[in-house]
């Protein structure tokens, strides 16, 4: 089987399928075969829905024959993090507690993918309930990093990162409450966006924290990410946070370049507040130089310390998550993985006043961000402070897991995209973040695309 199909972008696959140069069934079969061949070592999928995927692919090809192409993703395979409902398939959240939880309908985003003509290939590993992992005391093993299977792939959308980076599927949907799309994207050398809060509906998605949860795509290219976000975005009256805003074509200005743009760099997040690995930090500085070289104005900006954003995010997240998990934590605590239980339980000791104070602090932290962003089009900073740790050293995994600068943007609500910024001398990917103004994901894609073209890292593939 040709590597070309495994690593073909969603955009190219969609173009070829529409032009009858490639059939959706041929592509789907190739990716299902690859998954069968390599996923025993990587654990990206919890459930492959091969039979349904083949039927959908066949239907997509028949539609092409009749001239009924639904859009740029027609016939393109996409997989779902296993907290996103797919009708008649289990949504387990990677947990013993939901092993028999069969979805009665599609999540809003699943339905949108189907409307766009996508082929759903199955449900992907996650950290338990999008918070507890990586862990070995769960019903399914943890996903592994295709660049080095001894290391974790980030999370909580772990299977999404692994499957896309390993060429099992060109795109996957994950969720992001404190960085859970951008973390696996960073660890696996791919692209992941947390859209503006409200841009994408969470209906039919197992919640972790109502005011911080987002759904976002993981892909190997920036263009694919823009296409998938365009497919899943849109107003949903069933989600109280859903924005009644038109969805633009996120690819429209993507290739306009960065000349004349004003971009902030939040350096203190990785130099002062929490010192990053030197190669990781150097890759952000190199990206800043690259942007300057392409005609952007890059200037340093300052926000409150990263630790204040992180603590505020955790207090709000844990309070909201505890409200969801309280009953199970009181009656079935042994059915959680130990790490999940330990991460959720602090919510029991936060009072209503603590939660409200968290939201009051949030307002101040949001205001500080907007003040710093005055006159800027976007900002860049680090995503993870180091490359992912080995799964054989769980203490190191625990120590390094919270060393990140993603949670501030869940708190603020603005869009943030993680893209590759190079490779570490340990062979694992480096990554950066680009943060945009509210509902200006298009600007994130525009800057990300310019960096992607200059770095040209997409030809390097994991050894699987």
């Amino acid at each position: 089987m040709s590597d070309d199909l495994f690593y073909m972008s969603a955009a190219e696959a969609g173009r070829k399928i529409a032009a009858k140069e490639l059939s959706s069934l041929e592509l789907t079969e190739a990716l299902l075969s690859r998954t069968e061949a390599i996923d025993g070592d990587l654990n990206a999928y919890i459930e492959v829905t091969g039979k349904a995927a083949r039927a959908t692919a066949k239907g997509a090809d028949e539609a092409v024959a009749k001239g009924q192409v639904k859009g740029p993703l027609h016939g393109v395979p996409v997989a779902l993090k296993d907290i996103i409902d797919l009708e008649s398939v289990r949504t387990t959240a990677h947990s013993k507690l939901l092993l028999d939880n069969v979805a009665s309908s599609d999540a809003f985003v699943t339905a949108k993918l189907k409307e766009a003509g996508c082929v759903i290939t199955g449900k992907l590993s996650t950290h338990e309930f999008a918070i507890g992992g990586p862990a070995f005391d769960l019903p399914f093993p943890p996903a592994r990093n295709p660049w080095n299977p001894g290391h974790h792939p980030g999370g909580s959308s772990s299977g999404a990162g692994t499957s896309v980076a390993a060429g099992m599927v060109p795109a996957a949907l994950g969720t992001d409450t404190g960085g859970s799309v951008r973390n696996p994207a960073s660890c696996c050398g791919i692209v992941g966006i947390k859209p503006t809060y409200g841009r994408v509906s969470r209906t039919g998605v197992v919640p972790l924290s109502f005011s911080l949860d987002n759904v976002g795509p993981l892909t190997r290219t920036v263009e694919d990410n823009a296409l998938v976000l365009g497919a899943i975005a849109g107003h949903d009256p069933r989600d109280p946070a859903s924005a009644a805003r038109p969805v633009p074509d996120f690819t429209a200005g993507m290739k306009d370049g960065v000349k004349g743009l004003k971009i902030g760099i939040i350096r203190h997040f990785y130099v002062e507040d929490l010192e990053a690995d030197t190669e990781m930090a150097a890759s952000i500085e190199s990206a800043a130089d690259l942007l300057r070289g392409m005609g952007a104005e890059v200037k340093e900006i300052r926000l409150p310390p990263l630790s204040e954003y992180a603590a505020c995010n955790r207090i709000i997240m844990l309070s909201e998550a505890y409200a969801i998990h309280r009953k199970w934590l009181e009656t079935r605590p042994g059915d959680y993985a130990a790490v999940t239980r330990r991460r959720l339980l602090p919510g029991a000791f936060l009072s209503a006043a603590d939660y409200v104070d968290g939201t009051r602090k949030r307002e101040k932290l949001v205001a500080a961000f907007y003040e710093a962003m005055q006159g800027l089009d976007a900002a860049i900073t680090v995503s993870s402070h180091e490359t992912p740790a080995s799964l054989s050293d769980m203490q190191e995994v625990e120590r390094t897991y919270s060393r990140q600068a993603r949670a501030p943007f869940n708190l603020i609500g603005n869009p943030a995209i993680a893209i590759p910024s190079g490779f570490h001398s340990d062979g694992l990917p480096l990554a950066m973040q680009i943060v945009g103004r509210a509902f200006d994901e298009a600007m994130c894609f525009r800057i990300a695309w310019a960096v992607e073209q200059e770095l040209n890292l997409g030809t390097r593939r994991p050894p699987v």
Partner: protein
Amino acid sequence: MTDDWPTVLARSGLEATYELFPDDVREAFSSAQGLLDRMKADPHYTDEPAHVFRPAREGVDR
């Protein structure tokens, strides 16, 4: 651990969980206190909470 631990535990509703996982519950209490210290909220009485739904619903450009 606070002198009021039995009261704190009772208020949390986690007595049964504590019987099974005492270390996890004790650590959870310490972790929550640590987070509150790090957040440095110290709000003025007039400070409003963030209304996270507002920008989504009203399309505020920020």
